[in-house]
C-alpha cells in the first residue's frame, strides 16, 4: 500500500515537473524586488564602455535588461573572495557571469537549468573526449572545438587572470569558477540576451550541427523547418508569452518541442526532459529521468533497474543522491507529444512517434547491437588493442554508429526523410562494405565467420544475404544483355 502511495506521489511529482499544469503558461517573471538591481556604482560603467566597447554597450542598450535598469555591475558584481574576482576601475567584478549570477534574478530558470542534460555536457564526453580530441587532434582542438559547445572547466590562474585555454568559452556545460555549471550565454547571446534570438533554431544549431548532432540539417529538411523558413515573420519570436498554438502557429522551432510552452504545459529550461530515447550511443535505449532531492538529475537506461523514491543511487558525478522522483520514458514522450497536439491530431502524433521508434529499433537490431557485440568480442579476445582509433576497424565502427547511426536516428526523431534514409544507408554501406571486411581482417577467416554467424546470420535483418541470385538492375545487372534487348 505504502509503495502504491509512493508511486502515486512520485508520478504526480513527475507530472508536475514535466507539465507544470498548475503554473502559468507565461515565461517565469522575475519576482525579486526592483530595488535589488540598478546598482548606483554600475551606472558609471556605461559611460566609459559606450566609448571603449561601444558594440557590446549598444547591444545592452537594446536589451530588456537596459529597459529594466539592470546595469553592468548588477550582473558582473563579485565579492573579493570569489575565485575569479578582480578589481576594475574601483569596483570588484568578475568577467564571467555564471548561471548562478543570472539566477539571482532568474530563479526559476536556474532551478530548471541546474541538473539538466545541458549542464552535464562536460561529463557526458569526459570518457570520449581524450580519445577523440587527443587522437584526432590535440588539446588545442578541445579548447577551440569540443569545449566551445560542451563547455570548458574555466581555470583562474594565481595572478587572477583566466587561463587562456579555458576562456573565452560559452559552452553549454561550462564549469564555472563559482562551481556552477552551464552558460546562459550559450543560447542567449550576450549582451542583448534576446529571447527572440534564443528561440531561433540557430541558437541550437550553433552546436547541434554536423555528424555529432546533425540537427541543423535534419530540421532544415523537415516539414517543420520548411514551414519555419517560409513563415519566419509570423513566428512572433519577441513575444513575452510564447505558447505554441496560441502566440504562434506557423512552425515549431527546436525550442517549441524541446522546451517550449504548449497548451497548459509550461516552458522549461531543462532541455532534455522531454527526450525518451538516448540517440547518441552505439545502441539506443529508452531512458528514465531520475530527479534527486537536491535538484540534481541523471539519465538512466531502461535496461537498468528502476530506482525507487527515497533510494540512494549514484549521481552523474559519482556522489550519492536520494531519489525524489523518476520520470518514465512514456511520461517524457507524453510531454513532447503535448506540443504536437497543438497542430496535429493524437493519432497523427502517435503514428509519427511510432515511425520514429521503428527506425531506432531497426538501427539497434540490424546494426547497433550486432556491431557492438562483435567489437566487444574482439576487444575481450585481444584481437583489437584497447586503444581507440589505432585500427581501421575502430574508425569504421565509430563512423557507423556515430555519424550514420546518429544521422538516421535524429532524422527519424525530427521527421527529416532524407537524413533518416541517408543516415541509415551510410550505416548499411559501412556495415556491409567495410565493417564486416575489416572484422575478417582483424579476426581471421575462421574466427570472423564464427562471430558473423553468431551475431548476424540468424537475424531476419540480414536474411537478404542468403539470396545471392535475387536479381535487381539497380547496379546494372542484366543491363545490355540479350534478354533486355
Amino acid at each position, binding site marked *: 500500500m505504502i509503495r502504491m502511495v509512493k508511486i502515486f506521489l512520485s508520478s504526480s511529482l513527475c507530472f508536475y515537473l514535466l507539465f507544470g499544469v498548475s503554473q502559468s503558461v507565461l515565461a517565469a517573471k522575475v519576482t525579486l524586488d526592483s530595488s535589488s538591481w540598478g546598482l548606483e556604482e554600475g551606472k*558609471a560603467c556605461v*559611460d*566609459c564602455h559606450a*566609448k*571603449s566597447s*561601444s558594440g557590446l554597450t549598444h547591444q545592452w542598450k537594446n536589451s530588456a535588461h537596459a529597459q529594466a535598469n539592470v546595469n553592468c555591475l548588477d550582473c558582473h558584481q563579485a565579492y*573579493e573572495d570569489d*575565485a575569479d*574576482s*578582480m*578589481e576594475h*576601475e*574601483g569596483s*570588484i567584478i568578475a568577467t564571467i557571469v555564471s548561471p548562478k549570477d543570472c539566477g539571482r534574478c532568474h530563479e526559476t530558470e536556474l532551478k530548471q537549468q541546474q541538473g539538466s542534460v545541458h549542464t552535464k555536457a562536460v561529463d557526458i564526453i569526459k570518457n570520449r573526449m581524450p580519445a577523440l580530441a587527443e587522437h584526432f587532434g590535440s588539446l588545442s582542438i578541445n579548447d577551440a572545438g569540443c569545449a566551445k559547445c560542451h563547455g570548458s572547466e574555466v581555470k*583562474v*590562474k*594565481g*595572478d*587572477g*587572470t583566466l587561463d587562456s585555454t579555458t576562456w573565452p568559452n560559452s559552452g553549454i556545460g561550462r564549469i564555472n569558477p563559482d562551481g556552477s555549471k552551464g552558460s546562459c550565454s550559450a543560447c542567449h547571446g550576450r549582451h542583448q540576451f534576446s529571447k527572440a534570438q534564443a528561440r531561433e533554431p540557430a541558437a541550437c544549431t550553433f552546436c547541434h550541427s554536423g555528424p555529432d548532432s546533425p540537427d541543423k540539417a535534419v530540421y532544415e529538411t523537415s516539414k517543420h523547418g520548411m514551414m519555419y523558413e517560409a513563415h519566419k515573420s509570423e513566428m512572433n519570436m519577441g513575444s513575452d508569452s510564447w505558447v505554441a498554438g496560441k502566440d504562434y502557429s506557423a512552425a515549431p522551432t527546436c525550442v517549441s518541442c524541446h522546451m517550449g510552452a504548449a497548451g497548459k504545459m509550461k516552458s522549461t529550461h531543462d532541455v532534455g526532459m522531454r527526450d525518451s530515447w538516448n540517440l547518441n550511443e552505439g545502441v539506443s535505449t529508452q531512458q528514465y529521468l531520475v530527479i534527486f532531492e537536491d535538484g540534481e538529475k541523471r539519465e538512466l537506461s531502461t535496461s537498468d533497474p528502476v530506482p525507487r523514491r527515497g533510494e540512494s543511487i549514484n549521481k552523474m558525478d559519482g556522489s550519492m543522491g536520494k531519489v525524489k522522483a523518476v520520470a518514465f520514458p512514456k511520461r517524457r514522450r507524453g510531454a513532447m507529444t503535448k506540443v504536437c497536439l497543438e497542430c496535429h491530431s493524437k493519432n497523427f502524433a502517435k503514428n509519427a512517434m511510432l515511425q520514429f521508434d521503428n527506425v531506432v529499433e531497426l538501427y539497434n537490431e540490424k546494426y547497433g547491437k550486432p556491431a557492438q557485440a562483435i567489437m566487444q568480442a574482439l576487444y575481450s579476445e585481444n584481437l583489437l588493442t584497447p586503444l581507440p582509433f589505432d585500427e581501421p576497424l575502430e574508425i569504421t565502427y565509430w563512423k557507423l554508429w556515430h555519424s550514420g547511426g546518429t544521422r538516421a536516428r535524429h532524422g527519424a526523431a525530427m521527421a527529416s526523410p532524407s537524413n533518416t534514409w541517408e543516415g541509415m544507408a551510410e550505416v548499411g554501406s559501412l556495415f556491409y562494405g567495410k565493417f564486416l571486411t575489416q572484422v575478417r581482417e582483424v579476426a581471421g577467416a575462421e574466427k570472423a565467420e564464427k562471430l558473423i554467424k553468431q551475431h548476424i546470420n540468424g537475424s531476419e535483418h540480414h536474411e537478404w544475404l542468403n539470396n545471392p541470385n535475387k536479381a535487381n538492375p539497380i547496379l546494372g545487372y542484366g543491363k545490355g544483355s540479350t534478354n533486355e534487348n
Partner: protein
Amino acid sequence: MKINDFLPDFITRHVLFALIFGGVCGIGFILFLIEFDHYTSTEEFCTSCHSMELAAEPYRQSTHYNPQSGVRASCGDCHVSEGVLSATWDHFMGSKDLYKQLFGPDYDDPVVNALHLPEAAFDARKWFKKRNSATCKKCHVKDAINGYRPDTLQIHQEDAKDKTCIECHYNLVHRKIPDEKTFKRDKWNAMIEEEFGLEKGSAKKILEQQD
C-alpha cells in the same frame, strides 16, 4: 686696500675661507647627488642586484621598454621622483630594499622572489597612488592621450577625469599581480609551485622559512 675693508668685522679671514670651502663643498655635494640620483636610477645600477634582474625580465618585454616611439623609460623614470631632494629621499627610502637584499630573504632565488613579488607590487602601487602618479605624468599628459580607439582621448578627459594613472593602469610593465583586495595568497602560491615544479604546499614553507 684689503678685502677686510668691504666685509663686516665678524667675517674674518678664516670665516671667509670656511664659507668659500663650505660653498664649494655644498655645490659639489648637490652635483654629486644629481649624479648619484642619475646613476642609481639606471637599469644598469638597479639590475646589479640579481633580484632586480628578475623584475626586469618582464619589463624588457613591455611597451615601456620597447615603445614604437623609441622613448624608453628606465627604472628610475617611473620609480624615482623628479627633483634632487625627492629623488634623494626616494633613494634613501629605497635603501631598505638593499638592506633586505643583504639581510632578508633570498630574493635572488626566483621562487622566493616570485612568492614575495605581490607585496612588493602592492607597495609600489601605493607609492604611485600617493604621488598622484607623478612619474607617469613626466611623459604622459592626460589631455594628449590619443590611443588606437577613437574614444581614448574622450575617455581620459571625461571618465578618467578625477582618476590618477595607476588607478586603472597597473600590471603594465612587470609580472601580472591582482589588486590587493582580490589577491588570494593560496592561489598565487599554487601557481608558483606549478610554474617551478614544486611540491604542493612547499611555497608556504618557503615563505615561513624566509621570514
